């Protein structure tokens, strides 16, 4: 086992353990904190896959904003914070079966597919992938229209969210 594989196993174990803790912790605030650890593990996996930008996005958006949004949402609802009802309901066995079948099916299909033997494309000639992405985002030959449309979309999302959430 190489050092990289060891780090991967470590990060994968941390991610899976946190994910299990998210669904088994009775307290919702603690579950949200475990979710942050799980998302952090996913960021580590992105790093190991040489996807540094995605790792940054994972930390900035998922841990920095979405986890905070979730914790605020939990803390807004006083009852949920106190409530520690049962962690399972009557269909948990069926749900576990479907999840296991989906996992097994995906593993089967992905290990059989020709993509399983493909190597990652070599980006070692690109000196700075993030700078390349930045240039592509604002280049008229590439993604400038989606880039500006994203800004309009974000504006609409912000105004829409405030219109719905803000009553005075």
């Amino acid at each position, binding site marked *: 086992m190489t050092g*990289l594989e060891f*780090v991967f196993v470590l990060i994968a174990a941390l991610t899976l353990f946190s994910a299990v803790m998210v669904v088994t912790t009775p307290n919702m*605030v603690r579950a949200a904190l475990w979710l942050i650890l799980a998302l952090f593990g996913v960021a580590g996996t992105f*790093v*190991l896959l*040489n996807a*540094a*930008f995605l790792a*940054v*996005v994972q930390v*900035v*958006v998922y841990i*920095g*904003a*979405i986890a*905070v*949004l979730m914790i*605020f*949402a939990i*803390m*807004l*609802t*006083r009852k949920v*914070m*106190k409530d520690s009802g049962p962690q399972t309901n009557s269909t948990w066995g069926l749900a576990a079966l479907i999840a296991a079948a989906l996992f097994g099916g995906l593993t089967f299909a992905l290990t059989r597919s020709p993509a399983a033997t493909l190597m990652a494309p070599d980006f070692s000639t690109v000196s*700075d992938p*993030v*700078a*390349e*992405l*930045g*240039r592509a*985002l*604002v*280049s*008229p030959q590439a993604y*400038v229209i989606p*880039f*500006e449309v*994203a*800004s*309009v979309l*974000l*504006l609409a*999302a*912000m*105004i829409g*969210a*405030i219109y719905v*959430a*803000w009553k*005075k």
Partner: protein
Amino acid sequence: MLTNWLYVGLFIIVALVLPAVTIIVPRFIAPKKPNRIKVDVYECGIETVGEAWVQFKVQYYIFALVFLVFDIETVFLYPWAVAFDKLPLFAVMEGVLFIALLLAGLVYLWRKGVLEWA
């Protein structure tokens, strides 16, 4: 590329070990003379009122909602900023337009009074 991340991993380990040491070591070497005031919850030096598990004001959620949008803006601006010194003026203006469009949203919130802490 990955070797650079080794430093990040190193920093994570240091960031975990250092506070752990400062919490665990005093447990063994510090003298213990607890009284009611000493074991009280510390909250910026003022006396604590009620429990820590309180219900938040809805304003926090609204701020988090707006923060989420600007956070996603950061994701788009980060590669743009990295490539900034290699970009032509036109491309720089594209980024400025991106920021300006979202600033319009901020102005909308401001005018609507969302940013006021009532």
